[in-house]
């Protein structure tokens, strides 16, 4: 059993009295891919939002690399070595592809305002650029460097968004529905890429495509109505009656089991 990188326990969140998450615990071991699945509205993205500080957690504990701390604020994530992609793409339309990725690398270089004011930051700038180019090459987006995000196809813009998340060499990558809206070829390419990325960092992935999750995940956690109903390796989880019911509403129609890829 490898040691834990991210451990969330008993996370609860409510939005104006409605409980979005109730006592959810998730553990992401080092060097592994954890899939977070569940029906629409189960609270999967809310989990990512809590980890990345976009939603304030009601209660629960957060430990990263064995160190307990408050849930981080969004701008503190990069310092911890955590990056994420958003549902949709979230690129800056007015900036070039390269600049989009450079924004992701910015913090790593601690831009110094006074230095920059006097034009002493040429080296920093060059370093930033180099790392951004590396990340783009990694996600197969080298050819897109000079383009504007508005000129990119949807799969290409996802590559750029992924490069932006990888540019600081994160320890943990949070992916929010990376396969959504992609065709099968692009999903296969993404799966191959994620298997490569996995050698360098852990990944917590929220996803609807069950086949894709089975392909890339070491373990999965299943949410339904804000509660964790199962966790473990995919083949165990898919036989869990609670999971089947969550996906299908009932358990005894074998024809519909295909939805879960069973």
């Amino acid at each position: 059993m490898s040691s834990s990188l991210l451990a969330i326990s008993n996370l609860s969140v409510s939005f104006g009295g409605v409980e979005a998450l109730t006592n959810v615990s998730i553990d992401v071991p080092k060097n592994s891919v954890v899939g977070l699945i569940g029906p629409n509205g189960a609270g999967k993205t809310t989990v990512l939002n809590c980890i990345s500080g976009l939603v304030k957690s009601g209660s629960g504990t957060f430990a990263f690399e064995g160190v307990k701390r408050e849930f981080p604020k969004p701008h503190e994530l990069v310092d911890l070595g955590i990056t994420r992609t958003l549902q949709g793409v979230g690129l800056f339309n007015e900036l070039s592809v390269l600049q989009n990725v450079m924004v992701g690398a910015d913090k790593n270089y601690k831009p110094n305002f006074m230095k920059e004011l006097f034009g002493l930051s040429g080296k920093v700038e060059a370093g930033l650029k180099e790392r951004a180019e590396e990340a783009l090459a990694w996600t197969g987006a080298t050819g897109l460097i000079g383009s504007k995000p508005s000129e990119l196809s949807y799969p290409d813009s996802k590559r750029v968004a992924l490069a932006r998340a990888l540019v600081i060499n994160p320890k943990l990558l949070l992916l929010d529905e990376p396969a959504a809206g992609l065709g099968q070829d692009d999903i296969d390419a993404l799966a191959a890429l994620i298997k490569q990325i996995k050698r360098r960092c852990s990944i917590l992935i929220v996803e609807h495509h069950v086949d894709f999750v089975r392909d890339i995940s070491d373990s999965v956690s299943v949410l339904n109505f804000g509660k964790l109903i199962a966790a473990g390796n995919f083949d165990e989880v898919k036989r869990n009656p609670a999971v089947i019911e969550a996906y299908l509403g009932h358990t005894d129609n074998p024809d519909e089991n295909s939805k879960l890829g069973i």
Partner: protein
Amino acid sequence: MTPFLTAFFSGTAQGAIYALVSLGLVLVWRSAGVVNFAQMGQAMFTTYIASQLIQNNYSYWSAFLIALISGAALGALVDLGLMRPLTSRKNSQLLNSQSMRTTIPVIASLGILGVLKALAGIFWAGEERGFPSPVAPNAIKIGDTSLAITGFDLFVIGTVFLTLVLTTIFFTKTGMGLAMRASALNPEVTRLSGIKVGSVRTLGWAISGIASSLAGLLVTPRTNLSPNTLDLLLIIGFTAAVVGGLSSLAGSVLGGFILGYVISFVNVYSAPENVFIAILAFLLLALFLRPQGILGSKEVRSV
């Protein structure tokens, strides 16, 4: 000298100042989503500070520098002391509505304008006074022919040009400038990239403070300084920003120069009393032909 050249040179010098005002407005609009009605109040106040220093026998240039620094400080102070607490979510039920969250800072900026004018009244008795220029406002002569441009005009154009070059370098070549553009475009993603969007926004207010402070220093040798002199400049600057495209820094500068020429040519070829009608007509025409502004993006800011 032909009337055309007279109008052209004076339009360039005036336009340079409008470009600064417009740039200041767009900086705050883009980084904070606020139309800052206090902007020229801030400029008025820092110009009074410079004027006071000069009266106390400081040199023009040290007063100039201190005014710019106070401009930055005042801009940052407005954001840190007022805008940030006003828009922070914890504060009140009222802020739960998005429209209130965008309206309140604008109204607050009107309040700041009032406070600054009142303070100028208290400290400097609200008196109208002249403000010196570092260059004599005489027409430049080549041989016996005097040109339609004064040394002061050249000083204004040169200073603004330098400012625009520095601003362009800042926004296109530095990581901090990139961070500012990114924050304006998508604060959430920027935050996730490890950038403190709040601090970046404060920096936007500070730079806007410098730009408007500079505009105050450059316009008052011609208009004199009183608590109300710069109000007109805000209106023209705002028109320039709308014409150029509220979301575009380059557009705001372009709009400033265009307004400078419109005003100056109407002044020369028509009559000074027609200037305001001309500004209004031009604004309506521009909004009719290109509502998003000359360089503005089609995307409407969600309010």
